[in-house]
């Protein structure tokens, strides 16, 4: 469908300058290397394929996280969300997790969602930390407002980062946000934020070439190293 740019400009939110996230590579517990990079807008249709199955998983709040993430990605894709970004984690090109967030304004970030394969590899922890790294270190923001759907997941972040309670309603449903300040980030960085830069070119090339959305069997074989059962 042809886009009428005159009308588009009415509906697109104004954006503030947004620096890119420099990719990094993390060695996971199983020795595999996860490239963490910023997804490109045109990769959203692939990401939606990965999120789609979660819409029907009721346990652990997967369905609401998936549904909200799906709509946020679509919002980003169609230029209807202000300053959104998405970081993906890939092992040999296979998508193992994604996080998304946006800049509420130049100084404040609004953390949105984290979705990761849960196999004890702490992919979610690594990607959440990368998201905070981007807000504070590369986007130059002073604070990030955070909530979560899962109380268990959230309590873990609250304790790990020492998040401060606020009475600012988060845009995800209005619950009071918790805040990660620049000071808190740097106080916890050494034990929560890791990664090597630059990413070796051959690894980056594989990651950037294609986001492979893997099914459970492929994840077991390629990521867990577990053959057939």
């Amino acid at each position, binding site marked *: 469908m042809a886009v009428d740019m005159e009308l588009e400009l009415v509906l697109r939110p104004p954006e503030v300058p947004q620096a890119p996230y420099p990719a990094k590579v*993390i*060695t*996971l*517990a*199983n020795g595999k290397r996860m490239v963490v990079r910023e997804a490109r807008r045109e990769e959203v249709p692939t990401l939606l394929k990965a999120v789609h199955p979660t819409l029907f998983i009721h346990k652990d709040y997967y369905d609401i996280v998936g549904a909200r993430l799906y709509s946020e990605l679509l919002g980003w894709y169609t230029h209807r969300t202000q300053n959104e970004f998405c970081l993906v984690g890939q092992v040999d090109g296979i998508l193992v997790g994604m996080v998304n967030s946006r800049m509420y304004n130049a100084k404040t970030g609004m953390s949105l969602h984290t979705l990761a394969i849960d196999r004890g590899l702490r992919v979610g922890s690594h990607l959440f930390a990368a998201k905070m790294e981007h807000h504070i270190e590369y986007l130059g923001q002073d604070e990030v407002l955070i909530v979560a759907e899962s109380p268990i997941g959230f*309590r873990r972040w609250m304790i790990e980062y020492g998040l401060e309670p606020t009475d600012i309603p988060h845009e995800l449903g209005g619950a009071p946000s918790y805040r990660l300040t620049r000071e808190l980030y740097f106080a916890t960085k050494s034990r929560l934020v*890791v990664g090597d830069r630059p990413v070796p070119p051959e690894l980056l090339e594989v990651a950037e070439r294609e986001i492979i959305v893997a099914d459970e069997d492929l994840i077991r074989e390629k990521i*867990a*190293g577990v053959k057939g059962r």
Partner: protein
Amino acid sequence: MRDVAIIGVGMIPFGRRDEDTLVDMLAYASMHALDDAGLGDKGVDAVYVANMGGGILQHQTAVASALVDRLSLLPAAADTVENGPASGASAVKNGVLAVASGYYDTVLVAGGEKMREVTGWKATDFVATLTHPEVEYPYGVTLPGMAGIFTRLYMEKYGLTREMLVAVAIKNQAMGALNPYAHVEMLITQEGILDSPHSVVNNPAMADPLHLYDACPVSDGAAALILCPLEMAQELTKNVPILVAGFGQATDTHTLQEREDPTDLKAVTLAAQQAFKRANLKPSDIDVAELHDAFTILEIAESEHVGFFKKGEGGKAVLAGKTKLGGQIPINVSGGLKARGHPVGGTGVAQLVDLTWQLRHELPKERQVKNAKTGLSVNFGGFGNNVLCFILKRGGK
């Protein structure tokens, strides 16, 4: 006293089992064991059920009575056995004594736990209820905490290193990846959990100097076995009977602070000595062992205290490959608690189920100890204040 044999075994995959209740899991494992023993359409004389947390986590007590009803095993005698993480071996012990005494002929022993229904913090609190209620529990001390205290002392005394602990984790997770019943299916590397600077996130400190990968997961699961007098085994089943050659049980002080030497797991040593005496065997006679590696340090410490290695040598033995499949004494070929998982009440039974499969030579090549004839298990209750050791022998020809 009659010789007692294990003639049937059953287990369900350990892990997160949201759809199953505690009694569901016990029932499934029990049916596998009953069928395996040729008793699928018959009764048994007595049932012992090992479970630590039903009353706390599921708000359900008298689990054995529930299971007997669920399995239509009425009017069998039934007891629930609670001995913390050693509930499983305690229940088996009770079953063995019941058969050995001549009082009962066929006995079902099942053990299970449903721990993932609650958050990790509540599961940690539940396990901590085994600590001393006045002088330990109020301080927030946890089982990992006690293991951390023990590990530091062991490092100071014997020069144990993190590499040794990591080697146990890597070995056991590699074996768990081959075990269809195992909770954890993930190969890990020393680089990922120790050497890389990224290991600070991959493998954070849990109870220093122990880290995340030094601990077993929190699991749901159940296992079961059938006991009968050895002389009756052949009329009931074609399975190779596995003789309970001996067992031992010993206790130590409730609190860590009152141990004379907190690095000395006296109860493990005594329980093993009793078992060896009963079985008329010595440590070098054992072909395969299932030790209680709720924490990697415990596999190493128990391997020394039962007599496989001298004190302080267990860690070096792991590094030298002596405890892997094909080594001098394969330990935790099932993946151990580390990878198979640790549904606390079920573990002691699961260890004996795994040893039975080993001694029957029923496992696939990549998990079978060649020609295994004798097996040993250690089920470690509390923090080493109530320990059972079993020795099994392959029966028949």
